[in-house]
């Protein structure tokens, strides 16, 4: 036994059993490491980046549709009211947002118009990304109500001022109004 208390034969016998074959392969290690490396950040936004996006979106919403009377216009997104906004941040944004026109909103509608056969028509495309909104209605100038599909293109034709859309109403599952937005027509006249 040596001065450290080690039994010299033990060490020798163990070392004698060691397999000294060197079958190392650093390139294999690099290949495996590359397979484990996460994708570049540009394709996978970080939490901080998502946070900034949300903040920027909230500011846009607050400036554009938050305080003033919200309205629907040609190519304009419909901003959500306070209740709708809360749903904006529910869950993962990617599940509810659209990238339509580069804008991410819980609710997006577009109202366009053109003259046809001496009359007018409204082309309304809508897509709802708020889990809270379960139905959409279009209120016409004569007081009648037309239901809209949540996720479909709808062409709404009208021949006179009485059938022009004036309001868009979004309701939740209980039938309560989530947001009520006046429609601004392409001519710029507000039919509210």
């Amino acid at each position: 036994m040596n001065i450290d208390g080690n039994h010299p034969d033990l060490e020798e016998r163990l070392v004698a059993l060691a397999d000294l074959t060197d079958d190392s392969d650093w390139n294999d290690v690099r290949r495996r490491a590359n397979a484990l490396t996460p994708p570049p950040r540009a394709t996978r936004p970080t939490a901080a980046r998502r946070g900034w996006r949300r903040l920027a979106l909230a500011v846009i919403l607050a400036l554009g549709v938050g305080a003033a009377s919200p309205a629907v216009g040609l190519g304009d997104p419909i901003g959500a009211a306070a209740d709708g906004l809360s749903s904006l941040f529910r869950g993962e944004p990617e599940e509810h947002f659209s990238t339509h026109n580069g804008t991410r909103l819980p609710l997006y509608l577009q109202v366009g118009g053109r003259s046809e056969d001496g009359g007018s028509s409204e082309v309304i495309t809508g897509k709802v990304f708020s889990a809270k909104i379960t139905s959409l209605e279009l209120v016409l100038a004569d007081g009648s109500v037309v239901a809209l599909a949540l996720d479909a293109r709808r062409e709404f034709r009208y021949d006179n001022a009485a059938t022009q859309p004036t309001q868009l109403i979004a309701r939740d599952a209980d039938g309560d109004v989530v947001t009520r937005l006046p429609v601004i027509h392409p001519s710029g006249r507000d039919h509210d």
Partner: protein
Amino acid sequence: MRDHDRRLAASASKDLERHRPLWYMSATVEAIEAVYRRRYVGYRNALATVTGSQDSARDAVQEAFARALAHRRQFRGGSLEAWIWRIALRAALASRRAPAEVPLETQLNLDMLISPALIDPERDPQLAQAIRSLPPRRRLIVFLRYFADLDYAQIASATGVAAGTVAAALAQANASLAQTLPREGVGDEHRRQSP
């Protein structure tokens, strides 16, 4: 860990801090490759006592160094060799179990998880039997010392015990094995059997 062990661990940790080479502080690709070049055979041999074969040990070592490369920013200083060994041990255990059961940073209970043993006991049956009589942690310390050629501080960091405990465990293991093994002409016959 007992209070005595904790004090020893703290003391050993300070010693490690004082004597730590500069490159220990950063896990660069070059540093990891240097460890690989230097330790590959030793790690594979030591891991083989856990996995049961050289082939599976080789795969675990390759996987461990790949994980170390991919997650090198998670290295928080200390012995890079010990850090990679811990990853290697987890890779070895993961190859025996479902990977999800052995997360990268989980503190392992070595005595419960592993039972290292010589992979070719017939080459030295007396030694194999003597080693089997040791507790699992001591067995692993013996293999890390003589197969992986790690020093006491590195073994301490790799196994989560104090450097003093490593020294004591090795001394006890040697004493225990010396008692178990024949004292005259020991090893000569078995060494001759080695390839």
